[in-house]
């Protein structure tokens, strides 16, 4: 039994990390009243930027490459998220439709650029990925050390720590209060002197930056290269995590961990006595079915921020 946990828990954290980063971004955007269906595309840009930078500068930067690549991915997606923010906030475009367009645009742009830079539709594998490490000291603790601190990606720890930071910022700081106010009742917020547009812009850019990190982490720990099918649904999974987690950063983290768990079950499940006879398809669809059930109120009702999806027009009632 312990052997199973030794393989399941690190796998869970491994699959969950990119989802956690992206879902945290989704929470910020949606809390400010902008539905971000474009998370998938923003992850694509993150993955593309991270892999491209990694391949081009690995020789010059050595072991620092993955971390600088992650930074590049973050900035690239933050900039790209303006393509969502400007139409959705300033031009009053339908946010869902804009998000769908962002997904198409990101994929087209990413593959187009790969063809420009590397002359083919799929990159080589990166030479400087993020490596697993044992946490010194903690790994020697019996049982727990092997479960949580052996052969782990540091990005998984960062993701979990960041969830707590994100929760603190959103619920315990004036800035977080402003984001939530703008997402619940923009007119009331406006009346109180909160700049609705600026706040929403900041929230969307934060979501872009976090989704960029998510895409970058995915590319540098899981896929290790970039092609048209590198990011296939992780962004939508992150959206599911946002809703499953009831628009709360810690909830989103929990949901992402759960999805990571379901994913690792579908990978290592065949070696678990209890699950070896369960067709893999059940494990594959579990995250999605559970999200639907969560939405339907079987696992506690999820209610979206009130103004989510509604463009704010100054002076309208």
């Amino acid at each position, binding site marked *: 039994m312990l052997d199973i946990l030794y393989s399941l828990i690190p796998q869970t954290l491994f699959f969950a990390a990119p989802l956690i980063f992206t879902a945290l971004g989704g929470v910020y955007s949606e809390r400010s009243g902008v539905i971000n269906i474009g998370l998938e595309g923003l992850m694509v840009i993150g993955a593309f930027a991270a892999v491209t930078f990694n391949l081009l500068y690995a020789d010059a930067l050595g072991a620092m490459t993955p971390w600088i690549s992650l930074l590049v991915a973050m900035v690239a997606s933050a900039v790209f998220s303006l393509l969502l923010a400007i139409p959705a906030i300033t*031009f009053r475009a339908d946010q869902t*439709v*804009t998000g769908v367009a962002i997904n198409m*645009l990101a*994929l087209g742009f990413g*593959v*187009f650029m790969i063809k420009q830079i590397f002359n083919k539709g799929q990159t080589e594998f990166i030479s400087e990925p993020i490596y697993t490490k044992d946490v010194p000291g903690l790994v020697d603790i019996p049982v727990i050390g092997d479960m949580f601190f052996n052969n782990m990606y540091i990005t998984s720890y960062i993701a979990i720590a960041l969830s707590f930071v994100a929760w603190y910022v959103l619920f315990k700081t004036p800035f977080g209060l402003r984001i939530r106010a703008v997402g619940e009742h923009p007119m009331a917020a406006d009346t109180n002197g909160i700049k609705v547009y600026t706040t929403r812009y900041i929230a969307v850019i934060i979501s872009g930056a976090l989704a960029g990190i998510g895409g970058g982490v995915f590319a540098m720990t899981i896929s290790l290269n970039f092609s048209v099918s590198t990011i296939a649904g992780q962004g939508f999974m992150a959206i*599911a995590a946002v809703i499953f987690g009831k628009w709360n950063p810690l909830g989103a983290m929990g949901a992402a961990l759960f999805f990571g768990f379901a994913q690792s079950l579908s990978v290592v499940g065949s070696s678990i006595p209890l699950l070896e006879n369960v067709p893999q398809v059940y494990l594959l*669809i579990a995250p999605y079915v559970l999200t*639907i059930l969560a939405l339907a109120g079987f696992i506690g009702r999820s209610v979206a921020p009130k103004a989510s999806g509604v463009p704010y027009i100054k002076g309208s009632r």
Partner: protein
Amino acid sequence: MFSSTKFNFIIPIISVVLGLVAGAIIMLIFGYNPILGYQALWNGVFDSGFFMSETVNRITPYILTGLAIAFAFRTGLFNIGAEGQVLVGWIASVWVGTAIDAPTILHLPLALLAAGAAGAFWAFIPGILKAKLGVHEVIVSIMMNYVALHLTNYLIRDVMTDNSESTEQVKQTASLTNDFLIGLTGSRLHLGFIVALFMVIVMWVILERTKLGYELKAVGYNQHASNYAGMKVGRNIVISMVISGLFAGLAGAMQGLGSFGTAFTNTAFSNLGFDGIAVALLGGNNPFGVILSASLFGFLKVGALNMSTAGVPNEIIEIVIALIILFVASGFIIRWALLQLKKGERK
């Protein structure tokens, strides 16, 4: 000068032009010749009967997914789940097409019906959840897409075949292909476009000529007013999603009984459903507009494959299409700019 119906025509046209111009600028920036690029695009479709037929085969499912999304839009719903509905429709049509023996006159309608029913059922779930529990249909539909993707892969691998990645060909009695058309063009041009055009008329009749359509549109405009007027809002939401899903399911049948004649496992989506969003928007959610926009997208997608002869990566067309959607979605700003221009002229 600019009435609102006129804007409905002008904004899509301006968006297409802006999208193509943006594509040309991108080509210039990366050192390609946009004229050669677009010429290759054009020739990629019109140079041979084969590719013209391929284009028609591409347009056919676009019309149907475009109708699916347009129909839902008209009734105030966003059916982003067309993608999954296409997949379940596809596999249902192939299932009936391979498992049953019947004369064409029964077999083909039955296979089409199965596809429509499967799509309708897949859309029924988000519909009923929205109607009864107020759950947003977009999220449920996205989840249903992934369930459809994994479920159809499972059915193909483990139920319909013995661990194979593709099913058998559908029987000739259920096929939309036709020896005469195949002989004429050398392609798999099939009769699905007749089904698609017929469904265009069906949508128009439902929306414009029936009480049901009136109610559906009323619910789309204002749920509370419709409720006050005695319409059953929840029921109308479910009906609207079911009809929308039926269109999308039929789009799957076009692939299953026509273009491919088989169903195969997918690692990612076909994008027919997502592209349908673009088709519907550009077509102004009007059934006849959908024909035009589906034709444009079908033309762009097939022609793009030939752009590599001019050295241009065909992803440029994905970028152009995405930009067109962004421009249409930002119609408010185009409208504003046009009105500013008009004001300027008057001075």
